[in-house]
């Protein structure tokens, strides 16, 4: 038994707790508890009415039992009864029980709310505080409904006791977090803000938490708090260590309040008012100065409190990112902490410096600490500190120190804790790519990475090295040589075999001149690893083999023999067997020319953001990789990988591809389910042609695209309806009407007339990327909805509708989309489109979701335009003019003369016309400056032939660049529409 405590000695409770502690086994404890539960139950059920004290004691025992981890299924009513007791301690225990044990959907909530209501109106401050604590602890929606209106009144009323104000402020904060919609500050706003001026430090301390939270959500309404916060902070910072009496903590004046004030200021940009800003800068300088003063106490509490304020001040300085002087001072201060004997400070300094590294003002200052940080990575005994050091190295890396940092991280990887290896690998891979000046270094680094930590090298990493090697012809030979050497190791990681197989399959010819790496040697080396590898790797190797046959005809018989062997051609794995069969057949029946076309070298990958970066971002949340970095990565990546090789559209495609959920499909430019993972995508359809006689399934893109079935239920305004096989879209949770199309939706639509892929829409929350393909009168569109924030989107729904007449012209079917998008994640939606007849409007895409409670509702035009269904028609000059003449009725022609919106670059014009979907006919128009095109628009009901002529006039009379566009179609409306669409493009 302990010395009996102060206050109420509930002896029965103490004895029970002693008994429990004396139990020798879990069983004995359970037995004792069951005995007690039976006792309490009988007391509660007994005839004799229990007095308040006994009730309190038993309720307290139940609470103790619950806190031991046992379930409690009775006693709630007795606890609620205690709430209406006049005795403080009985009430207090009642409230404690309720706070711990009552969940929000309890039937008792009405009774509880009643008791709370009575206490709130009792005008007894202790009772009021108890009631407020209970609301703050439970914080359920029902309580918010009942009290959200009352509490602001209590908070600002002139006669409310300070202690009640404190509880009311934090109680309201809790309700605001649970049910922001129910807490309406409106008329109270200014009085709440002025609590920052309250004389009672405790009231300010409590109120500021509420104000900070409200400011985050409604910065404009609360912006007057900035100057109040600055003056309060200034008074605290300049006060002597004893001025604030009991709010001074180990000689530090009001550390909690100071931190909260600095945190509140981080909700806002730097103050615009010069005087306020000056005062704030002075405060920050004082805080930095104090860090240099000798400590007033040796206690760790003193230095912790002082440094808590310092770190919060540094956060604010970093947040403003506009005071170079303060940033550099902050950096120097953190630099001192890097070598502090307190582990905690070293940890925090490393962490805080990470953010400083991303500011242009302090990046260089951070870099000066590189040796210390490297040393920390090597010598810190605590893995969490080493992790911070690795993060900081990553953050401070740039072109000047990349080689050193990557080398240090690589050598750390050899002994790194398993828990952080994967992340380290990603970081090394990213840095190596981002700062690669010469690509041989990049290739070396990645291969080293695979050698050291092959198990932790995710698909993204090795896909990426292949992408880069394919896109950079200056590194291909070196890559081939290096993987060849790496594969010589008797035991090499399977990821190395994958990279080796892929690269030798593409570029083995570059090293085949050396007899030490002749084609057969290469093949034998690869094949020696074959049997140790998993099925996907073997599949990849088989593709490499068939590529060898093309590259080195002399290996054909050896490889055919391998393919023909039972272990391949009769492999129990269907994928391997199919590849063996197909490749064997291909190598025997296809002519050298066909073989060379099918097995052509992979075309360069479109430039895009590194998917490794996307992965890291996903892994760590937005905290670890800032938007800055991502963009920088994209920019530099593009530049490094020869971004100029392709048109400007690629960056848009890149962005839309950035974090497609199935990276394997994405990275290799192939769709999931396409079995030949090493065959170039352009060759896909060729392969199909070769094999069509052999009865191999067409893996073409539109294979499983069936015409969407017509809905018989045309009453549904939702659109053309869903076929039986498609589940209906999830019922719309939000009742709001779809928003009208965005004003810019036409402009967005126009961007896609001549292209099929790119970013359709982007705002601060959401990015929508599109990939689409069309064949005949059918189309399929992939929409990628990317959540750019760190917060989930919930009840995410999309609806595609065809307004008005369009319903009967176009059949659009959207597959349901995931209702939840995690922060930083992307979901995909497939939309099938069938053109029934020619059409003019575009389908509408409405998107609704909730983001942090707020409904987002936006409508865009889906870029489905009539030209998407063009089939190009090649024809000679003679035919063209003959048809042109046939379409000579006035209504068949539409013509527009317009000013050039863009430069008249011939190549750009050609690319756009090709993107339009028509055939661009060369040598047809007698004037070589003009362009003519021909195509047929496919729809279910009809085919509409169209001819187009575009006549640029670089020096029109007005001195401006003009175009004359003429379109002739067998259908007048089509000519008109095409003319409209195209006039916006040039």
């Amino acid at each position: 038994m302990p010395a009996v405590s102060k206050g109420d000695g509930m002896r029965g409770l103490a004895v029970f707790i002693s008994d429990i502690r004396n139990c020798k086994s879990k069983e004995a404890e359970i037995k004792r508890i069951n005995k007690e539960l039976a006792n309490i139950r009988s007391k509660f059920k007994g005839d004799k009415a229990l007095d308040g004290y006994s009730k309190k004691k038993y309720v307290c025992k139940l609470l103790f039992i619950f806190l031991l981890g046992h379930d409690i299924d009775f006693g709630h009513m007795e606890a609620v009864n205690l709430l209406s007791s006049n005795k403080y301690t009985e009430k207090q225990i009642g409230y404690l029980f309720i706070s711990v044990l009552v969940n929000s959907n309890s039937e008792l909530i009405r009774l509880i709310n009643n008791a709370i209501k009575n206490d709130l109106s009792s005008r007894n401050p202790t009772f009021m505080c108890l009631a407020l604590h209970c609301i703050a602890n439970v914080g359920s929606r029902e309580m918010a409904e009942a009290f959200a209106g009352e509490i602001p009144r209590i908070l600002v009323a002139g006669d409310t006791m300070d202690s009640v104000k404190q509880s009311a402020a934090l109680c309201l904060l809790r309700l605001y977090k649970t049910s922001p919609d129910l807490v309406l500050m409106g008329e109270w706003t200014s009085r709440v803000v002025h609590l920052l001026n309250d004389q009672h430090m405790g009231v300010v301390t409590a109120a500021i938490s509420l104000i900070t939270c409200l400011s985050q959500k409604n910065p404009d309404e609360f912006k007057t708090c900035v100057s109040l916060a600055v003056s309060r902070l200034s008074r605290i910072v300049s006060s002597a260590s004893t001025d604030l009496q009991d709010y001074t903590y180990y000689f530090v004046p009001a550390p909690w309040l100071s931190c909260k004030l600095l945190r509140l200021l981080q909700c806002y940009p730097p103050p615009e008012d010069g005087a306020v800003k000056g005062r704030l800068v002075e405060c920050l300088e004082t805080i930095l100065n104090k860090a240099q003063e000798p400590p007033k106490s040796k206690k760790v509490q003193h230095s912790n409190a002082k440094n808590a304020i310092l770190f919060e001040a540094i956060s604010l300085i970093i947040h403003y990112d506009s005071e170079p002087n303060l940033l550099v001072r902050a950096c120097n201060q953190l630099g001192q902490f890097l070598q502090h004997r307190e582990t905690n400070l070293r940890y925090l300094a490393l962490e805080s410096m990470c953010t400083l590294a991303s500011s242009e003002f302090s990046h260089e200052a951070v870099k000066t600490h590189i040796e210390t940080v490297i040393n920390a990575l090597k010598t810190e005994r605590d893995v969490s500190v080493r992790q911070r050091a690795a993060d900081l190295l990553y953050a401070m890396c740039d072109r000047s120190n990349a080689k050193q940092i990557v080398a240090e991280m690589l050598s750390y990887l050899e002994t790194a804790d398993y828990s952080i290896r994967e992340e380290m690998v990603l970081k090394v891979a990213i840095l190596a790519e981002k700062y690669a000046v010469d690509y041989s270094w990049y290739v070396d680094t990645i291969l080293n990475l695979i050698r050291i930590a092959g198990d932790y090298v995710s698909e993204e990493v090795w896909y990426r090295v292949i992408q880069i090697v394919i896109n950079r012809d200056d590194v291909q030979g070196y890559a081939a040589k290096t993987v060849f050497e790496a594969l010589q190791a008797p035991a090499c990681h399977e990821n190395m075999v994958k990279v080796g197989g892929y690269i030798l399959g593409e570029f083995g010819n570059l090293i085949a001149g050396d007899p030490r790496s002749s084609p057969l040697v290469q093949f034998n080396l690869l094949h020696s690893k074959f049997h140790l590898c998993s099925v996907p790797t073997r599949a990849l190797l088989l593709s490499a083999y068939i590529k060898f046959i093309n590259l080195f005809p002399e290996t054909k018989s050896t490889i055919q023999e391998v393919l023909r062997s039972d272990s391949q051609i009769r492999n129990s794995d269907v994928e391997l067997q199919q590849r063996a069969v197909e490749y064997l057949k291909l190598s025997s029946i296809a002519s050298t020319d066909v073989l060379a076309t099918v097995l052509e070298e992979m075309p360069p990958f479109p430039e895009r953001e590194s998917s490794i970066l996307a992965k890291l971002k996903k892994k760590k949340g937005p905290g670890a990789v800032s938007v800055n970095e991502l963009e920088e990565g994209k920019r530099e990546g593009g530049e490094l990988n020869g971004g100029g090789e392709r048109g400007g559209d690629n960056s848009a495609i890149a962005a839309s591809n950035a974090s497609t959920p199935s990276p394997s499909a994405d990275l290799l430019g192939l769709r999931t389910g396409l079995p030949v993972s090493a065959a170039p995508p352009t060759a896909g359809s060729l392969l199909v042609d070769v094999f069509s006689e052999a009865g191999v399934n067409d893996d073409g893109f539109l294979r499983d695209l069936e015409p969407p079935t017509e809905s018989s239920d045309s009453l549904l305004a939702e659109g053309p309806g869903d076929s039986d096989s498609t589940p209906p879209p999830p019922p719309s949770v939000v009742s709001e009407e779809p928003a009208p199309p965005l004003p810019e939706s036409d402009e967005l639509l126009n961007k896609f007339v001549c292209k099929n892929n790119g970013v359709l829409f982007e705002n601060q929350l959401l990015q929508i990327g599109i990939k689409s393909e069309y064949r005949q009168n059918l189309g399929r569109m992939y929409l990628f909805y990317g959540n750019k924030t760190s917060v989930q989107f919930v009840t995410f729904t999309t609806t595609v509708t065809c307004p008005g007449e369009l319903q009967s012209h176009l059949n659009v079917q959207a597959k349901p989309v995931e209702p939840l998008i995690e922060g930083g994640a992307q979901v995909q939606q497939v939309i099938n489109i069938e053109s029934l007849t020619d059409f003019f409007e575009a389908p509408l895409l409405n998107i609704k979701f909730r983001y942090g409670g707020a409904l987002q509702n936006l409508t865009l035009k889906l870029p489905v335009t009539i030209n998407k269904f063009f089939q190009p028609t090649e024809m000679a000059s003679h035919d063209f003019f003959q048809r042109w003449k046939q379409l000579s009725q006035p209504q068949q022609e539409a013509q527009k003369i317009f000013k050039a919106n863009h430069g008249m670059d011939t190549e750009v014009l050609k690319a756009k016309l090709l993107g339009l979907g028509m055939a661009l006919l060369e040598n047809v128009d007698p004037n070589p400056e003009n362009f003519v095109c021909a195509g047929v628009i496919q729809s279910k009901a009809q085919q509409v032939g169209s001819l187009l002529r575009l006549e640029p006039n670089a020096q029109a009379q007005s001195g401006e660049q003009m175009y004359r566009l003429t379109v002739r179609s067998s259908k007048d409306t089509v000519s008109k529409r095409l003319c409209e669409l195209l006039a916006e493009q040039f």
Partner: protein
Amino acid sequence: MRKKSTAAYSAYIYKIEKMQFMLLFSRQGKLRLQKWYVPLSDKEKKKITRELVQTVLARKPKMCSFLEWRDLKIVYKRYASLYFCCAIEDQDNELITLEIIHRYVELLDKYFGSVCELDIIFNFEKAYFILDEFLLGGEAQETSKKNVLKAIEQADLLQEEAETPRSVLEEIGLT
């Protein structure tokens, strides 16, 4: 500390929970006090407690007081046989949280008079009351030691006045 650049500021939405929970447990891993500031099911609470107790107990004495755990930051400190452990958000201030723990220990110490684990076991309800006066909804409500203890002692005073004579059975702890 906040880990984000200013450029990311506009797109970043603050999570507005501050402290997520506080746990007190012994060196043997026995939970002595649990305070949850976010709604979680009993099952989740038990799971978190189990994992976290294990993680913290496995750490060596000289290691730093902060660790990343799931997407939270854990701030912990050992006082004699008890571990005090708080979970805060990524952008929260670790050092000030460490001192929240210390101030709470001071409050317990002052109230019980050199507090030990047994005081908290036998007077768990008091430990909860003191915590509620100090922290409400995970935010500091009153940081003055005097003011917090004044509120608690006032309650004790009310109690003593209200005390009624107890039965003999109760005196010897048999009911």
